[in-house]
């Protein structure tokens, strides 16, 4: 296993020229180091981007708020800009692991690992975030939902690096909510996690993004429910719309943390409660 510690974005991108599908990018290490210790991964190349200055920083850009991929959870939850424009991210970042993990774990890493139980990814879905990718030969931007392609799988090519994430400006009258159900009150991995952002004008839903984690092989949008909010609820009302969406859009499983039955039932209840509490729905 080759390890290259990059000191600049150019060095990181140069190192990634040789990367293969088996190569890994190391940021905070809170996922990768655990996998390595458990023998679950044996990369041919590890590119450490933890000290790359260009990956740090939160700043306003034309199309919203730029979050460098190396932004840590601690930085997210202490950032005034994040609290003002993307408060759900700060709320979710507080739910990630313990303080020590929050100090190391990065938003780029959380997205890059693409665990179905990731806490920040559903929030990025709900906020309609864009992922900025860069390689030695070019750059591209993808909607976050197109970036996550499967179980711990993403659209990132081996030679690409997540450079940053753009969160679009917060629309007026957008209502947002986040709920994580874990195995205990702190330092837990999600049994299920929900993030939603709904814009309404005069009681009419104009935009809705509802995302859930740990209820399928990847983070998912609850599109059936979103459609019902636009087009009108079924005769059974919100509960039926939620139930139909949970059935259609999720595929939870039994695992060491919970059961499929619990995940689908509780996801539905949490959604009903969150949506019922939103004044426009």
């Amino acid at each position, binding site marked *: 296993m080759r390890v290259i510690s990059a000191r600049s974005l150019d060095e990181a991108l140069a190192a990634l020229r040789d990367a293969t599908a088996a190569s890994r990018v190391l940021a905070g290490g809170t996922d990768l180091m655990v996998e390595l210790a*458990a023998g679950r991964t044996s990369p041919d190349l590890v590119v450490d981007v933890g000290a790359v200055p260009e990956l740090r920083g939160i700043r306003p850009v034309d199309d919203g708020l730029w979050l460098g991929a190396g932004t840590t959870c601690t930085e997210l939850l202490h950032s005034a800009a994040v609290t003002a424009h993307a408060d759900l991210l700060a709320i979710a970042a507080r739910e990630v692991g313990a303080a020590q993990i929050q100090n190391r774990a990065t938003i780029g890493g959380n997205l890059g690992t693409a665990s179905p139980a990731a806490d920040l990814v559903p929030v990025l879905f709900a906020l309609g975030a864009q992922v900025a990718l860069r390689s030695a030969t070019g750059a591209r931007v993808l909607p976050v939902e197109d970036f996550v392609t499967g179980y711990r799988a993403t659209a990132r090519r081996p030679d690409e690096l997540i450079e940053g994430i753009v969160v679009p400006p917060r629309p007026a009258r957008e209502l947002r909510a986040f709920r994580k159900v874990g195995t*205990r009150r702190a330092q837990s991995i999600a049994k299920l996690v929900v993030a939603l952002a709904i814009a309404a004008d005069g009681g009419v839903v104009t935009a809705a993004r509802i995302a859930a984690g740990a209820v399928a092989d990847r983070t998912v949008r609850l599109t059936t429910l979103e459609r019902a909010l636009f087009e009108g609820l079924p005769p059974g009302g919100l509960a039926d719309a939620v139930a139909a969406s949970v059935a259609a859009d999720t595929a939870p499983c039994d695992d*060491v943390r919970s059961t499929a039955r619990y995940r689908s039932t509780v996801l539905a209840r949490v959604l009903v409660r969150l949506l019922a509490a939103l004044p426009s729905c």
Partner: protein
Amino acid sequence: MSACVGSDLGRPDGPAKVSGRAVYVADLAVAGAWHGGAVRSTIAHGRVLRIERKPGFDWRRVVVVGPGDVPGDNVQELLSDDQPILAERVVRHVGEPLLLVAAPDLPTLEAALAALRPIVEPLPAELDFESATRVLHEVSIDKGDPGARFDSPPPGARLFEGTWRTDSQEQLYVEPQGCVAWPADADGTVVVRGSMQCPHYVRKALARCFGIAPERARVVQLTTGGGFGGKEEYPSVVACHAALLARAAGRPVRIVYDRHEDLLVTPKRHPSRVHHRTLVAADGTLLAMDVDVLLDGGAYTTLSPVVLSRACLHASGPYRCEHVAIRGRVVATNHVPSGAFRGFGAPQTCFAIERQMDRIARALDLHPFALRRHNALRLGDATATGQVLHDSVGSLAVLDAVAARTGIDRHRWCAPAMAVPSSNSGRVRGLGMSFFFHGAGFTGSGEELLKGRVAIRLLPDGRAEVAAGSTEIGQGTTTVFTAIAADALGCDPGDVVVAVPDTAAVPDSGPTVASRTCMVVGSVLASACRELAARIGGAAGDFRSRARAWLAAGGDGIVEHVYGSPPGLVWDQATYRGDAYPCYGWAADVAEVEVDLDTLEVDVVRLTTAVDVGKAIQPRLVEGQITGGALQAIGWAQCEVVSSRDGRVQQDRLATCIVPTTKDAPRFDVTIVEQPYAHGPFGAKGVGELPMDGGAPAVLAAIEDALGVPADRVPATPERLLALLEQRERTS
């Protein structure tokens, strides 16, 4: 003079631990030490055909030890000889060690372990203890004639049946298992230093493994990061492995488990199923009890007979009943062996009897508090073994204390099977209680057979050194011994030092288990100190000056005492009749929970507990034991899932092995009750295990109160509560 007992001294071991200077086994600098590890079974049951060595590895870089390399008996010395140090022909649980390897560094060790592949032919594995048939041990307790009572109950009496289950639990001590072993020195002595509760147990195991006299094995405890019973018997396994490797390598070998290995292979709490049949008069008087206790012992006997014994001795609870039959069995399965864990069988049977009492109360429309108080054992009553309680019975005192603190005696419980509760906030509250006792010290004649010894000896500078095999594992032994010795000697705590438990330098005071260190070992220490104080005399001058003068005059500065049971204690191990324990600690808990109706997450918002400890030698430490033990019980009650798939523990990392954090902890309201025990030091009884016993039944009773579904199994996870609620909807 009682300056230290009852006050709060600083912890002598505290500054080094807080500042990071304390030396744990992983920190110990040992020149030239190699790293040791084990090749383990990956299946629950199978016939070992051979162990393949993958080509390409240079085996000259490491040493490999197999069953044939054990110089003494290939037997893990404990109660039974059924567990080998290294499995030879058959493996009986996932993680069972087959071969040992030592290497100069960890990467080489890992490469060698990966290059050794056991070829094991699978055999059918028994993974359901409720259907397992191989019995490891049985216990019967009989009092009166319950059969006749059940056959012809008096008019108005009613029969109640209940089946109660508890799952396993992981000790999760902060520091994983580990030790360093040295090859035999010039006079043939094998030395082991490590993390452990019972150095003299480890010594005995090494003697058997090496076929040497116990004196030729020297075991020294290092700073130990917690045990909870998990370091009672298992450190002997690690020590034998390390010592065998040190012998083969001709150099010191260190084995320190990482958390993953520790979670996968070390013993945990015995899963249980307890069935109760209870005959109750209309006024709530318990007329007859029939209790069937079944424990999952796992693959080997380990300490299961004693765990079963304690489980059965607590199975009828702290209640009066003239006619009792208790039948206990521990059966073998192909799970990792179950072992010692705080409470040692009592939490399982305490859960069952307490939930059974709630069931009876509801059915008879009696108040659960009143039912318990009505039947509570009092001074002069006899337990299930016929033990008459002569002194130090705080039963009513603890019940009345929690009633005064919470008003539980006036609480109206919800009826079971009521409609699904609703609330605008989506949260509902519930209250539950438990009442329990815990026998302090070894069961029956255990202390008499053990004859624990403690020495107090004057050092040349006039300080007094406490010498005992009892270990500081975070619970405060050092502080408690310092307080007892200082007051019994009439000196300052600064005049007392506590010797490192080193089998070559301290007498065997017995294992640090069974809530016995303060009560039993402390009482021997107090009597030894009083004799030494009498020798030195109470002349003028500070203690050290007097001690030095005594030594200068040729006085004997060493007093060693042996434990003697209080007069009148009688125990018949064959019939389980008589005085099961020298005395009991008593306690009552009230749990207040809030349940989220969407997620069925349970918050224990307040836990009120009153505990009769005889005398709190160090009140702050006692409170720490009580709140820590109660939180461990709360975790077991609601979130500490331990499950296995094909015999492999699934919660094998800290990411999945869940215990409560401080955020999950309730507000604690602790009342310490002191009903002194005449034979304990300054009146003290045991406290270590008692707080583990009552949390689970109180929390599950509170959940039942909140949700109206019968909570009959530990842990009551949200997933299980959902299943119970759905079952009720289907049937109603």
